[in-house]
């Protein structure tokens, strides 16, 4: 049959020669290879102390952003929840009261904003859908935990820390 590529390699199964049959040269070759690796620098990254650099488009934990004046950008439009293929996002909106202008940028804001991290697939569609540039997946990994309910992250974990603090 005509080979489709030139990568085909015919394996010869000749009986082993005497030098091959005493195995010792091959064993010493193997020992030399492992010894070479013995002196090589370990590739291990000791995780909690050292961290591997994340790629620039790595998508990690979500954070809800604030604007330049430290106000929450999210206006609870629900586009992120709508776009979410895993249905991980839920929110309850509320109207901004008088005197809360320094807290929320828009007139409507998310009183409750929850992401179920067990459902989230970190696709980044919420980030793309957001018209207010309020949500970004720029955090680290989601930490492990013991209970399922602890994986539902609320605003306390998601919202960025206030600016001047």
């Amino acid at each position: 049959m005509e080979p489709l590529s030139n990568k085909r390699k015919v394996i010869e199964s000749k009986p082993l020669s005497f030098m091959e049959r005493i195995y010792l040269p091959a064993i010493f070759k193997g020992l030399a290879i492992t010894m070479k690796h013995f002196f090589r620098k370990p590739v291990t990254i000791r995780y909690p102390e050292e961290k591997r650099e994340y790629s620039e488009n790595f998508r990690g934990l979500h954070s809800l952003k604030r604007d330049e004046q430290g106000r929450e950008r999210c206006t609870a439009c629900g586009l992120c929840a709508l776009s979410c293929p895993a249905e991980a996002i839920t929110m309850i909106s509320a109207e901004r009261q008088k005197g809360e202008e320094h807290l929320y940028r828009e007139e409507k804001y998310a009183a409750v904003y929850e992401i179920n991290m067990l459902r989230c697939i970190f696709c980044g569609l919420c980030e793309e859908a957001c018209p207010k540039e309020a949500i970004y997946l720029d955090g680290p990994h989601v930490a492990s935990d013991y209970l399922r309910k602890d994986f539902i992250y609320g605003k306390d974990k998601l919202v960025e820390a206030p600016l001047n603090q």
Partner: protein
Amino acid sequence: MGLTDILIKLGLIVIIFLISLVIAMYSTYAERKVAAFLQDRVGPDRAGPWGILQPLADGGKMFLKEEIIPTNANAFLFIAGPSLAILVSCIGTAVIPWGQQLVIGGHVIDLQVADVNVGVLYIFGVVSLGVYGIMIGGWASNNKYSLLGAIRAASQNISYEIAMGLSIIALLMTTGTLSLRHIAEQQTGFWHGHWFTWNVFSQPLGFLIFIICAFAETNRSPFDLPECETELVGGYHTEYSSMKLGFYLFSEYINMFVSGAVMATLYFGGYNFPLMHHIHSPNLVAILGVVVLFAKIFFFIFFFMWVRWTIPRFRYDQLMDLGWKVLIPLSIANIVITGVWITYFK
């Protein structure tokens, strides 16, 4: 024999026992470290600096684990198995000459527990007993995998004992003695006349056969078929837990230590080292000799690990073929060659 002599002997026994246990403990650590280094990793490094306390943590874990004795197992033999395994591996150290005589305050201290005049045969006997621990444990577990592991261990040990004995016979023909101390003394220094004094240079083939058989007798990879996890779950210690499992693992490492010591003594000059005749203080020579012997033993232990992480496991029929069809004829040929050599060139 005075009281002090008896005390000294007792002290020596206790020290050797402790040393072999500590070495066995740290062999488990060394095994993981060597494996890691050979695979470009770091190995255990959390318990203490560089993970130095890891064996203590492992030992503590072993002690605290739940002790399980299967319902249908023969409880007495189930416990006797690991006890026998570790007992047999510990008594092998009795005839190893650890160094030359020390003279402290008029007391001559032999750095050897017992200079038996059949020392080599004693070692051989202990090695042949070693398989009972595995067999009894494997049978008493009442588990087919354990039984298969035990049976593999038995047939493997018996097969390789023959080649090992024949390779030692060739060595004994050149040394003319069965006492390990005499064999060690014959290899004094490194170079005498026009040839090396160490036996490995007069018996290279014998040493090769001996070390291969040592791998098989200690059930180390590439001959670790009795505990071959891809086929037999855990082999003969499938049903074991807690410190009884620890005893099996420990006895394997003590066996490695003893076989390293035997190989160093029989073939690599024991406590002798090059240029030892230029040091005039006998005590210094004795102490340096102990250090050198341990360096050789550690090298052999390292070699055991190095091979383990390099060569894949044999198939069972290949193992038997190698033992019966290759090593035994080779060692008989070695005896004939040695006989001819002794008759015509010595």
